[in-house]
């Protein structure tokens, strides 16, 4: 009884310490162009998708991200989840808002393309829906998530390349950056120390670090706090997306 009260008190204290994280903690942190949180994409397909996204990013500046999750809970719809994630991750460049996120909710069997402001002209909602219908859904219906997402990303990449008037060259499977992984270097330690020092200091500290990255106070805050997510836990090598804005454009489908 007593220990439970203490645990509760500790939790409350911790919750008070990290107010800034409360809104965002249901959302995972990005880990590159492919974020297979549901574990449904094989390694070589993942490398292919990453290769396409990398080529697109290098040659047009646009960023195409893929996300798979087991569940979008506690968000009521994949549209709500999509815009919250888009606001949190800011895929795309801040000047052009040229990000696209392809999201699959495996549990809900829903898929969504979230299109950044800057690409709404190249990928209007009708076209986004057509991409899902023509390239993504057939494979998803067969539970071949990797193939569906690869086809979808390839189709989107083609449209983006056309929009920027470039021909994508040198697309190759991209394994993870070699520096990523086991070794802990000084910057990781510094990062962790900073996080500890500024726990709850998201509003003071992050803006300094990522000055100009987050625009406005929009996004987040759909649900109330739950458990502690992994955000801010292990240092990730991925330095984050550019800072593109989203307004809810795109299309969704069940499969």
């Amino acid at each position, binding site marked *: 009884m007593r220990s439970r009260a203490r645990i509760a008190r500790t939790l409350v204290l911790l919750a008070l310490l990290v107010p800034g994280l409360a809104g965002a903690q249901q959302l995972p942190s990005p880990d590159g162009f492919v974020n297979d949180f549901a574990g449904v994409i094989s390694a070589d397909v993942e490398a292919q998708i990453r290769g396409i996204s990398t080529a697109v990013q290098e040659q047009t500046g646009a960023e195409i991200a893929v996300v798979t999750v087991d569940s979008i809970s506690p968000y009521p719809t994949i*549209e709500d989840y999509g*815009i919250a994630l888009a606001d949190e991750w800011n895929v795309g460049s801040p000047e052009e808002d040229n990000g696209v996120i392809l999201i699959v909710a495996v549990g809900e069997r829903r898929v969504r393309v979230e299109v950044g402001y800057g690409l709404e002209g190249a990928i*209007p*909602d*009708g*076209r*986004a*829906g*057509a991409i899902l*219908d023509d390239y993504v859904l057939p494979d998803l219906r067969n539970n071949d998530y990797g193939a569906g997402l690869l086809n979808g990303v390839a189709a989107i990449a083609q449209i983006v390349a056309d929009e920027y008037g470039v021909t994508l060259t040198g697309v190759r499977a991209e394994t993870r950056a070699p520096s990523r992984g086991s070794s802990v270097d000084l910057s990781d330690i510094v990062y962790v120390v900073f996080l500890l020092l500024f726990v709850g200091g998201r509003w003071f500290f992050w803006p300094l670090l990522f000055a100009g990255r987050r625009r406005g*106070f*929009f996004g987040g805050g759909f649900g109330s706090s739950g458990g502690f997510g992994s955000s801010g836990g292990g240092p990730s090598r991925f330095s984050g997306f550019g800072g593109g804005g*989203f*307004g*809810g*454009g*795109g*299309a*969704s489908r069940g499969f």
Partner: protein
Amino acid sequence: MARNSKGWIAPVAIIVILLVIGVFWFVGQQNSLITLEENVDAAWSEIDNQLQRRSDLIPNLVATVRGFAEQEEEVFTQIADARARLAGAGTVGETAESYGELQSALSRLLVVVENYPQLQSNENFIRLQDELAGTENRIAVARQRYNTTVQQFNTRIRLFPTRIVANRLGLEQREYFEIDETARAVPTVDFGSDD
């Protein structure tokens, strides 16, 4: 003489400094309130844009549906009426209300559409439906952002001491864009109640 001036310079200096600080504070608050109000207006105009965009989509959608389902005149009329009311809405509250009406009229249309499999597989219709759904989603996003800025603004202008500045500027609380959540288009779950 020197002693004399020393006697009044100190208090006057303090008063001047306080006044200057006060003026700076006031101007600062004034600027930030005006910025906040601009944010509210900007967020509102985004809703407005998307509402307009949806209104522009509707004639196309109706025309497409009509090609397959000519006899569903009642729904078409409801949509046209609701659309006209939305265009004539002045205040935030009126807009929200007629938004809800148009929303439910559109849901009815999409229910009706379920009786026409040919229409549902029509590519043009699918595209329009995606555009409509996308616009609905944009409205939802814009609405949430608008309400967030309104909340910030309303809170600021009601709190002391900013309140004094707000009163001097004649700033008034802004209205939230509240809609009946049940009206939010969920076209596929309703059972067709075509009367």
